[in-house]
């Protein structure tokens, strides 16, 4: 193996990489916040919400969980324009990530809600709270607390999955790496660098979510 690693291009392409990182962070942030909100809504429907909405939500969840993210992305970006919905690369990428995380987090959060002791609902009712108030004020936060580690992992998985959005020319970290390798022919180095960026971001994101879990949720005594 006679290969000389060459990272001398890094200085020239620094801005491209930074821009890519910015896009990946933005996609992750929007995807995570909106995706989890969508997941909460769907989880509420599937557990406590109106009966007639449950089958469509179940279908949505199963359809997303059993198809690759890339195909969902392609369907949104390439397929939807033919029915009149034209989205930019970033809009399509954001939408695909929200829809994807929405389905996964729905199932995770649902597990959290279903593990709620019956007494909690009764306690809400005893305080004359309406069902929706009971859900919002009594059920939701402990349910999220229960599944926070699983939800955090899912967010990291979705972030890593976002590498695919480079395929519809959304300019994320992977796109930057593709761009660099097409200009410098230093494919291995370019992908090594982008892989390292993803690894560090994944570690940082996991730490951040753990920390957030500690801020958001009240401390509970050891059970």
């Amino acid at each position, binding site marked *: *193996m006679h*290969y000389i690693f060459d990272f001398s291009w890094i200085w020239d392409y620094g801005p491209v990489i930074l821009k890519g990182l910015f896009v990946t962070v933005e996609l992750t942030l929007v995807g995570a916040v909106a995706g989890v909100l969508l997941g909460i809504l769907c989880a509420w429907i599937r557990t406590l919400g109106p009966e007639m909405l449950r089958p469509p939500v179940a279908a949505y969840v*199963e*359809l997303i*969980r*059993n*198809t*690759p*993210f*890339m*195909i*969902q992305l*392609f*369907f949104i970006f*390439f*397929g*939807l*324009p*033919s*029915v009149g919905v034209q989205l930019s690369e970033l809009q399509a990428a954001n939408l695909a990530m929200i829809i994807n995380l929405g389905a996964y987090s729905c199932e995770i959060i649902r597990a959290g809600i279903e593990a709620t002791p019956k007494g909690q609902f009764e306690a809400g009712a005893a305080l004359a709270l309406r069902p929706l108030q009971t859900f919002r004020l009594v059920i939701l936060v402990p349910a999220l607390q229960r599944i926070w580690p699983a939800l955090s992992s899912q967010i*990291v998985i979705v972030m*890593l*999955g*976002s*590498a*695919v959005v*480079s*395929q519809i020319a959304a300019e994320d970290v*992977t796109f930057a*790496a593709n761009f660099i*390798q097409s200009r410098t022919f230093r*494919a*291995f180095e370019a*992908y*090594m660098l*982008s*892989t390292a960026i*993803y*690894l560090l971001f*994944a*570690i940082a994101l996991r730490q951040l979510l753990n920390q957030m879990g500690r801020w958001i949720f009240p401390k509970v005594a050891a059970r």
Partner: protein
Amino acid sequence: MSDFTTWDILRNLLLATRWTLILSLTSFIGGGIVGLAILFLRIGKSTLGRHFARGYVELFQGTPLLMQLFLAFFGLGLFGIDVPAWLAAGVALICWTAAFLVEIWRGCVESIPKGQWEAGQSLALNHVQQMRLIILPQALRIAIPPTAGFSVQVIKGTALTSIIGFVELSKAGTIVTNATFQPFVVYGFVALIYFAVCFPLSKFSKHLERRAAAAYATR
């Protein structure tokens, strides 16, 4: 230029589906074997081995599968091998699958009560014997539902290999789209085929899970 009927589209996609299935199966089996080897390091006695296994899992679970595919594709080339897409796809998917299976199986092994190891020890079994005769047979039963569930992730993971040029279901979708200009129909079909493969597996794994849970509840 010939016209594509809906049946033509579907037939081409279905023909490509076998490569998705073959690649999934290869990755799953290969990943299982590599995963088992790393599992032994992960729960073994050697500190170095444990560190290696943890690093391995962290690396492959902390980076996008797409990057792993690119690195396999361009990295193997550094050794002077002309890398066909299927080889890079297989190597990357096996390594990636192994990393997830190690963690799933580690959880299963660790859920076996410590007393079982001690029981083995008191029968003068050595570490490998304890593992083989006492721990693994029990861990295996717990491991089946989550392992079956993970196979769905592997099948979905194979879609990414289209990006490095392996022709499977997703790549066929792109090719057929380029020929027919009907992305809505084609990607819709592609999604439905993935769904038809993955959904039964998901349901099956759920079923196994529920049965295992029931078995524990009646104890």
